[in-house]
């Protein structure tokens, strides 16, 4: 039974990473720069915890590289911008134990789970974009002119992306609140 559960977690990681890849094909409101591609990884992290979340993010980044969706300009940049930063989304899994407790059958108040889901999204997204920011000024910064701040450039560039993506994910997370029991709570069998 133990092995079965482990296998199931591994496969869930694979399928959620695949989901993150295909959310590209779902129509998002036109004219808005929004995406919820991070959401599967955050939900995975809230379902299964820290390590599965991190593995899920890592797998997503590997899929992007393997399928040629990644912008590659240097090995270390690939490590920072893809492998490392996407893995950090899995840190949302820090909220998993509290989340599972809050979703226990006897609890009916939705306030706490929503709060936890929103904080998990914030933490995962924030850590991811911190790394994007660092890679931004290290790697893209060398193309910036001398005397102009690569920090500011990277901050503006990644900052707007961060705001849009996080805000969208949080809004969707809140709308999903009624479905936490199906999507996030892991039933003991």
């Amino acid at each position, binding site marked *: 039974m133990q092995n079965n559960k482990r*296998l199931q977690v591994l496969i869930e990681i694979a399928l959620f990473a695949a989901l993150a890849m295909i959310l590209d094909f779902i129509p998002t409101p036109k004219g808005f720069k929004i995406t919820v591609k991070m959401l599967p990884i955050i939900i995975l992290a809230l379902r299964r915890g820290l390590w599965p979340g991190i593995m899920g993010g890592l797998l997503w980044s590997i899929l992007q590289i393997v399928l040629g969706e990644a912008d590659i300009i240097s090995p270390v940049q690939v490590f920072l911008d893809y492998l490392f930063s996407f893995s950090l989304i899995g840190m949302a899994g820090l909220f998993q134990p509290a989340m599972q407790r809050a979703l226990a059958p006897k609890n009916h108040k939705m306030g706490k789970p929503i709060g936890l889901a929103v904080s998990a999204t914030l933490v995962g997204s924030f850590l991811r974009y911190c790394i994007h920011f660092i890679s931004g000024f290290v790697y893209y910064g060398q193309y910036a*002119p001398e005397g102009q701040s690569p920090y500011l450039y990277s901050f503006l560039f990644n900052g707007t992306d961060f705001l849009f993506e996080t805000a969208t994910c949080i809004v969707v997370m809140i709308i999903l609140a009624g479905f936490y029991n199906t999507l996030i709570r892991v039933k003991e069998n």
Partner: protein
Amino acid sequence: MNSLTLGNYYPGNSLLHKIDPRIKLSLSLVFMIGIFFLDKPLSLGVYALGILVLILISRIDALTILKQVRPVIFFSIFAFIINIFSVPGDVLARLGPLQITREGLITGFLMMSRLILLVIGSSLLMTLTTTSLLLADSIESLLSPLKVVKVPVHDIAMMISIALRFIPTLADEADKIMKAQSARGANYDTGKFFDRIKGMVTILIPLFVSAIKRAEDLAVAMESRCYRGDMERTKYKPLKLQTRDIVFLIVALLFMTGVLLIQFLL
């Protein structure tokens, strides 16, 4: 979902397609690191010639190659323009407070070509000529030394192949769900911003639920066929190094050494 093209593999039968993917993956790392030392016109020019030879060997048409550059085109033009104005030197022209220098023009051009060559080189060696499954296999093979330090390389490889296998299936399912929800009146193209996000959620929920269900079924199916992660899995087509792979590797490494010698000695 017919319009769905997965990855940017360009089917072909050239020498470059047949080279062992592990060699291609390692070489693209070497080339990527190497190009960062190049900032003289001559060494970059020779490097560009090498890339041209690779393109000719791969028999991939020019349009496909140019498409690879698209993601970095904006950035490289940006780097070019910034460099023209910012590098000090002989002034060629003035635009108000800005001045274009000869050195700026050269540096800008070199920067831009470096970025473009880098992108073309790595996509030629990796995603254009190697299927995603083979790339995943070679990642597993190159990571396998990490097994010593207890990195679950095998599990990662299993997850990559499952994910790759199920991306088309899940995309198909997303398509079906979208049509089903449209038939029920869900709407993600019109209306207010918030309504559109709500429309998106009507796709997300069934998609997530079915992925969870599918994972459960798949685990049971694999378990009942005696899948054990810790056992060495055999492959239908195991990767094997051949003479031509070694020759290709040696020629490519000699070329890179030559380019670096030109850069640092001439």
